[in-house]
């Protein structure tokens, strides 16, 4: 079977940091343009899994294939050039650079140059603040910038690690709408780690649930909707208690 461009396949991944193994036996596949949500309590290895996929953590075993190429041993920058975009939990925007400079720091070719304008079209708020430094941006704007910058190199699969963390509900909705719009119009695939379960269920086609570094559920969103006990059983979930909120959180 041939793999299509943008398809990520993780097989029996065992990874962590230095001598510590955090992930054990993680396997999943996401097709080109697919949307996979990743759920799990804090500390189960969601961020480590992204770090392994990007080559930022140590892989002790298993295989990662992207677009038909084995990327397990490739350096991080080659994985990024192969089409893996990464939005880390810590955002990591360059605060001494302006919004525009942050975006141009990811430009590698003339084609990337054009994507800067596309990023501004996706996040008009960033266009308004194009000359502002990273220190002058709100948390939501910083997150928008981190997502926008990850799109500059033209990724075919975007790894987003808790992009909504710490954002006000209105900004959260605005950012999620933009991400949804980007994914649907450009056909970019997406791996989304998020604590807000409802957001993941609304966004993803499939869900992977991790527990202590091991996958305990990989399957469709509809099954989870039909049988909430799966979530309850897998990650000890209960519906959100905030007044007027339908957000459920994994905790």
């Amino acid at each position: 079977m041939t793999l299509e461009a943008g398809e990520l396949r993780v097989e029996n991944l065992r990874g962590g940091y230095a001598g510590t193994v955090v992930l054990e036996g993680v396997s999943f596949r996401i097709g080109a343009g697919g949307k996979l949500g990743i759920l799990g309590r804090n500390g189960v290895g969601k961020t480590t899994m992204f770090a392994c996929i990007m080559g930022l953590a140590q892989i002790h075993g298993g295989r990662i294939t992207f677009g038909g190429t084995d990327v397990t041993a490739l350096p991080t920058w080659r994985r990024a050039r192969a089409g893996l975009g990464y939005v880390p939990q810590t955002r990591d925007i360059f605060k001494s650079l302006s919004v525009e400079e942050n975006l141009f720091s990811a430009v590698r070719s003339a084609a990337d140059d054009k994507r800067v304008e596309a990023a501004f079209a996706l996040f008009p708020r960033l266009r308004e603040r194009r000359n502002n430094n990273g220190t002058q941006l709100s948390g939501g704007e910083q997150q928008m910038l981190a997502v926008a910058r990850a799109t500059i190199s033209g990724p075919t699969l975007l790894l987003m690690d808790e992009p909504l963390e710490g954002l006000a509900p209105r900004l959260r909705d605005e950012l999620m709408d933009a991400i949804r719009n980007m994914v649907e119009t450009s056909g970019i695939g997406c791996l989304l780690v998020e604590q807000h379960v409802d957001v993941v269920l609304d966004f993803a086609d499939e869900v992977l649930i991790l527990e202590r570094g091991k996958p305990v559920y990989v399957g469709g969103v509809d099954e989870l909707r039909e049988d909430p006990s799966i979530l309850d059983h897998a990650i000890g979930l209960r519906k959100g208690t905030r007044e007027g909120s339908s957000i459920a959180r994994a905790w």
Partner: protein
Amino acid sequence: MADIVADPSRVEPGRWRALIGPELAVVAVGLLAAIVFPDDLGFITRINILSIFTLSIALVVGQAGIGTLGQAALFGAGSYAAALWALHVSAEPFSGLLVGALAGAGVAAASGLLILRTRGLTLIMLSIAFAQVLLEIANKAAFVTGGDDGLADIPVNPILGAVAFDFHGRVGFCYTLAALVVVYFCLRRLIASPFGLTCRGIKGDRLRMRAIGAPVVRHLLCVYAIGGAVAGIAGALSAQTTQVVGLGNLGFELSAEGLVMLSIGGVGHLAGALLGVPTFMIVRHVTATINPYHWLLVIGVLLVVTVLFLPGGLYGMVDKWRRRAGQGGS
């Protein structure tokens, strides 16, 4: 609403100012200094050359975060290469500059392959060690470099075959000022480009830059080689204008002075080099004239005061004033 169509032949005045304003300021200040102090053209020429050298440090240290104390090796390589080129091949000055640039870039690329895989203190120590090794090689290879005596009577043909270097140093001054302006213009363009922004990104967070597709070591090697070329040009200018090259051109003292000048001017900006070098040179010149034994004390105090009270250096202070004036005006 009618569309507003810009006339492409018209460039807004503000855009011109941003495009070549700083270079025009350098020319104006340089010419003013030459007019006011016509007997000190040799000194002003030295400031021009050291400004180019310090610009190379500003690029490498200030923009890319490569903490090196071996930049003099690249300056020296450029000066020896230009001198040997003039003595044995051609005394045409522009080809000498090109040879100096290539020598600086080549030595930077060769040493960069080793030192840029390290960071922090290790990198600093390796850069010093590499420069010291080069200095010792130049010392021992006396049949090529002249050893401790250096190379003297380096011939320089008239510029473009028409303008000969004069005894008063007027041509040397104009020649080095023109080189400074061209180098400054090119480096300003470079750091505003995606290449330069990637350098600043690498300085800020290497892992992040890797994750957005930047081959960090290769990129640093590239910028280090460009910095080497700039330092090599400065070295070549020094050889051509003084017609002498000695081991001092490779010495640690020059590297350290370059870094001190940049610290005084402001490490994070190219303009810091252009403010720091004249300040350092003038303070040293004046204090050494008053007391030839204790001028270093004054430089030390100046450096401490700058680091403690002007974290952005002189450029940071000027920039702050400019912003305040802008706010006041608006």
